[in-house]
């Protein structure tokens, strides 16, 4: 693994380390150079370069794939040209390692193997250990989180329900992961193997979580955040940073809302600040009542 002059590139610490640097921040979905600038000006710690935000993917249907490389390059170049150096992430389909290879070749800083796109493999995720670029993956519970980490994900995000503008699934998934960790932390050692079997998770990672009480990689929240109070809620429930997808650019005043959500993520535990930040933001995205959706319309059930 030794590169030029004794440098060892893309180590596990480098991959997890970038996720550590994003903590307390907001990662925003953007679909154009203009949106990337609005996100950067607002104080986003990174952008997710997409062709369509999840709300539009949901509305338009069809197969959702990796974005056009031209789109990703346009966003990378516009940030560089305006002297913003924030990381650029992009999504590949679950199991589509060729899309992941393309994203690595384009030089994106993080790959999101995402349930928001149409899965390419209904049994297997990408072997993320084989890549130099770090990966983030979604999860609904602790077992799913540990399977993805076992495959090499250097960052985990709870899935929520992307493009819904509804926080209920994000809350369910974050509570599930946090409860899972608290439970493991309280179990006697002899019960951990059976628990690994129940969770469908690698034994070594189960033992690690039981000892430390936390995931070995940062745990962010995604899928449904639309307001400063949503960001505050997820941070108080244990998220270490938040992804905001459709919630910003499907709202009435994206620039103002983006800035407010950035500030709410830092000062999440000061209600007076959240109150100020929530005032006069204009309409939030309209959102969906998830109880009206059928199972086949849910994105969060994708992933194995």
């Amino acid at each position, binding site marked *: 693994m030794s*590169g030029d*002059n004794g440098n060892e590139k*893309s*180590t596990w610490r480098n991959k997890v380390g*970038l996720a550590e640097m994003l*903590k307390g921040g907001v990662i925003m979905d953007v679909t154009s150079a203009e949106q990337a600038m609005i996100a950067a000006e607002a104080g986003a710690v990174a952008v997710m370069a997409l062709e369509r935000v999840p709300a539009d993917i949901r509305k338009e249907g069809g197969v959702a794939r990796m974005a056009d490389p031209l789109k990703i390059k346009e966003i990378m170049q516009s940030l560089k040209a305006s002297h913003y150096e*924030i990381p650029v992430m992009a999504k590949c389909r679950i199991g589509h390692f060729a899309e992941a290879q393309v994203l690595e070749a384009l030089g994106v*800083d993080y790959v999101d193997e995402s349930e928001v796109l149409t899965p390419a493999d209904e049994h297997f995720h990408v072997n993320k250990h084989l890549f130099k670029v770090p990966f983030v993956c979604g999860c609904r519970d602790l077992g799913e989180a540990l399977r993805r980490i076992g495959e090499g994900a250097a960052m985990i995000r709870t899935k929520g329900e992307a493009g819904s503008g509804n926080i209920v699934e994000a809350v369910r998934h974050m509570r599930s992961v946090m409860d899972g960790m608290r439970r493991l932390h309280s179990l006697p050692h002899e019960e951990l193997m059976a628990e690994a079997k129940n969770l469908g998770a690698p034994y070594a990672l189960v033992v690690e979580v039981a000892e430390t009480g936390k995931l070995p990689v940062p745990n962010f929240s995604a899928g449904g955040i639309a307001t400063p109070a949503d960001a505050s809620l997820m941070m108080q429930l244990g998220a270490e940073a938040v992804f905001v997808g459709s919630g910003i650019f499907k709202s009435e005043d994206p620039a103002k809302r983006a800035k407010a959500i950035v*500030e709410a993520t830092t000062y999440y535990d000061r209600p007076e600040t959240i109150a100020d930040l929530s005032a006069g933001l204009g309409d939030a995205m309209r959102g969906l009542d998830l109880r009206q959706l059928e199972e086949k319309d849910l994105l969060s059930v994708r992933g194995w």
Partner: protein
Amino acid sequence: MRIGVLALQGDFAKHIDSLHRCGAEAFPLRYAEELGAVDGLVIPGGESTTVGKLMDRFGITEPLRERAVAGLPVYGTCTGLILLAKEILDSRQPRIGVMNITVERNAYGRQIDSFEADVSIQSVEGGPFRAVFIRAPIIRSVGESVEVLCEHNGNPIMARQGSLLGTSFHPELTDDLRVHQYFLSMTHP
């Protein structure tokens, strides 16, 4: 000895862990009012434009600059180093701007070029230090009263100017406490 770790965004929790393991009292600092009660300050890794904007918006930049100029020991890693620099190549982003250095952000390239390497640090005993670089800056030039404490492949990656210390790399991501101990020694001269 109370060390504040600027906790607006970034890996502040890692620094707090390292400082605790050194036996120091450390806490996350998010309000200008808390600056009065610290004997030292760490500015962690993160995204420098995000942290700079939040410092400006919440009125922290000016009081922090005043305390740094008045001699408060401050240690910046990566983003922290960038925010301490007077000059940032190609950028007019908000900063504290108290160290006589010019830095270049992301000087090694994109994330896939992030790396680790063994480096040797002046005044830090005990052999090489494993330095973790993540989309790291390089110090491109140093001015008056700045001492370069470490170079890697000919580039300065650690510098000190009186009570101000900065590194391009992240000691808080390793178990090696020697750089944090070096900083703590600056807080009780």
